[in-house]
């Protein structure tokens, strides 16, 4: 098992190095750092001096190494557009995105598993069939249309919930949270639903099909034959076996949630990293793009790794076999 973990960590690092290379090439060759630092009025001497001081005359590998070393220390350069350190801007906006992603994930996982189990247990019921048909449409809806629809219903027509922003935010020093105020909690509802809906349907459909598969197994029949309660059978015996494959997909969806936050944040003008990234693309703010790429890669790769390790925690068969080999 240890060998497996080491191999996975090694693979993850390799992916990160490749992504780092893409980010570096972006940083180094697409945006011209000289342009951004010196502006239009400059002399050849100036350029040479800056090139030297930025290390742009160093060999490629050395530059790449320096770029990565800086990135690891949290130095992603200066934003062209805001003229501030990228790391500072991202740190300022990360809480908004992470909070939104966390609430969406909770919504997607909680409701997804609940509805999946429900539609599996009552698979002949009318409610279950309605939910399944609705989910089919939900999967083909573009995220931003869901957001707009929610805004139209709950903000424009009903005027229950705010349609943009984060509401009132509490500053905890190292973190800003909107969850401590009523307006902040209201503000997160629509974006969280928008962001989580797609993942929710995905998890629901997966849980349902896995659950139906598990309910056909012999050990479920045997549990029935022993007179166990339906509740114990469905939740203790069936759900636990369902969750093994669900964990992988759910884990990967968490990464997707952070990526799709770009769209939701734009619809709801949510002041997070995704909105920052979209603005960076619009205004070709290369350092911000490169930093975002690196951060989100770390997150994706990290999540993938954790999902793999979680397998061992859930399935005793893997645990034992892993230990033996």
């Amino acid at each position, binding site marked *: 098992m240890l060998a497996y973990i080491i191999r996975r960590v090694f693979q993850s690092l390799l992916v990160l190095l490749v992504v780092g290379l893409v980010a570096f090439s972006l940083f180094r060759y697409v945006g011209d750092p000289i342009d951004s630092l010196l502006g239009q009025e400059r002399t050849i001497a100036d350029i040479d001096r800056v090139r030297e001081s930025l290390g742009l005359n160093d060999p490629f590998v050395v530059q790449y190494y320096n770029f990565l070393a800086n990135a690891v220390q949290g130095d992603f350069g200066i934003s062209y557009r805001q003229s501030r350190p990228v790391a500072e801007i991202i740190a300022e906006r990360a809480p908004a995105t992470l909070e939104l992603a966390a609430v969406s994930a909770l919504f997607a996982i909680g409701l997804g598993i609940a509805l999946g189990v429900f539609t599996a247990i009552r698979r002949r019921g009318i409610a279950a069939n309605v939910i399944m048909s609705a989910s089919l449409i939900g999967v083909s809806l573009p995220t931003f249309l869901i957001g707009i629809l929610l805004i139209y219903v709950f903000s424009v027509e009903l005027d229950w919930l705010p349609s943009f922003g984060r509401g009132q935010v509490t500053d905890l020093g190292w973190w800003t949270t909107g969850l401590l105020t009523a307006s902040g909690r209201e503000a997160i509802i629509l974006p969280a639903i928008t962001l989580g809906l797609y993942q929710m349907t995905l998890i629901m459909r997966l849980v349902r099909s896995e659950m139906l598969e598990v309910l056909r197994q012999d050990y479920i029949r*045997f549990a029935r*034959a022993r007179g*166990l309660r339906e509740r114990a059978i469905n939740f203790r015996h069936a759900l636990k076996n369902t969750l093994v494959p669900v964990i992988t997909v759910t884990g990967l969806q968490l990464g997707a949630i952070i990526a799709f936050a770009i769209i939701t944040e734009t619809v709801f003008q949510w002041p997070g990293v995704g909105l920052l990234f979209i603005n960076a693309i619009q205004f070709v703010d290369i350092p911000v793009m490169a930093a975002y790429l690196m951060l989100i890669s770390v997150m994706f790769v990290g999540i993938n790794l954790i999902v793999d390790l979680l397998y061992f925690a*859930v*399935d005793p068969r893997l645990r034992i076999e892993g230990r033996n080999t």
Partner: protein
Amino acid sequence: MTTPVLSVRNLTVEIPTRAGLLKPVDGISYDIAAGEILGVVGESGAGKSMTGNAVIGLLDRPARIASGEIHVNGRRIDRLSRKELRRSRGKEIGMIFQDPLTSLNPLLTIGDQLTETISEHLDVSDGEAKARAIHALEEVGIPAARDRIDAYPHQFSGGMRQRVVIALALCAEPSLVIADEPTTALDVSVQAQITALLKRLCRERGMAVMLVTHDMGVIAETADRVAVMYAGRLAELGPVRDVITAPMHPYTDGLMQATPDASEGATRLRQIPGAMPRLGSLPPGCAFNPRCPYTQDRCCQDPPPTRDVTDGRAACWFPLTEHAAIPA
């Protein structure tokens, strides 16, 4: 005469299909007394397992009990509510499944699976439940039960797992056990151990056991009485010795001829020609008539009465005791 533990009367199971109503179990009656093992034998599709599932109330939809009565310890159970039926499962009726590799939940320890079953049916403390679980494992011959109670199913061999399955089925002390092909998935060497274990538990506890199998050898070794099923109907019922030595139904006779017997040396096995008809296309009259060497006109017109099949009687118009010598 004391009340039998299990009493089945005219049990019929139906499956509505697009092609019409199928009867995988058709008008079956039999009893099992305490401490007795009844072997139910027949080809696959003969309705053996379906009968067991009907008794324990685990028929898969759309199969359903269409008519007949099932009594356990004198109480009628085929009309019970879902909740009452669930309570009697495990506590009154235990069931042992065929494949020990798939009958145990891979993600729960065997201790978990035992104690949850015990706590469900018996009013005992957690500690008491665990003690009973250990005892149940010891009873089925699992060595070092106290240490192995926290092990997961995959840590046991196939034979040991089947012992665990038996412990699970018996841990709430049911008076009736339905064993559905309990040895089919096991190695031959392990098979004998498991049947011996079943027999011992049956005698010690005075349980009634319904042993479903297609293996005549297992029946001969284990059962007290045997019920032979063919195409959903009871062909013959009687004490094992009688049925084996002097089968009355031609089908039973065919089964016997087709069973290898090591003691008789290398005589060539005779097989029954043809295959069991599908339920949707049963021939008129006796279901066995296309394969029977003694078929006469009556066999192809009227089905022999199955209602009267009790010990020593077969559902056959011309039982073998009335036949002359078996043609070669």
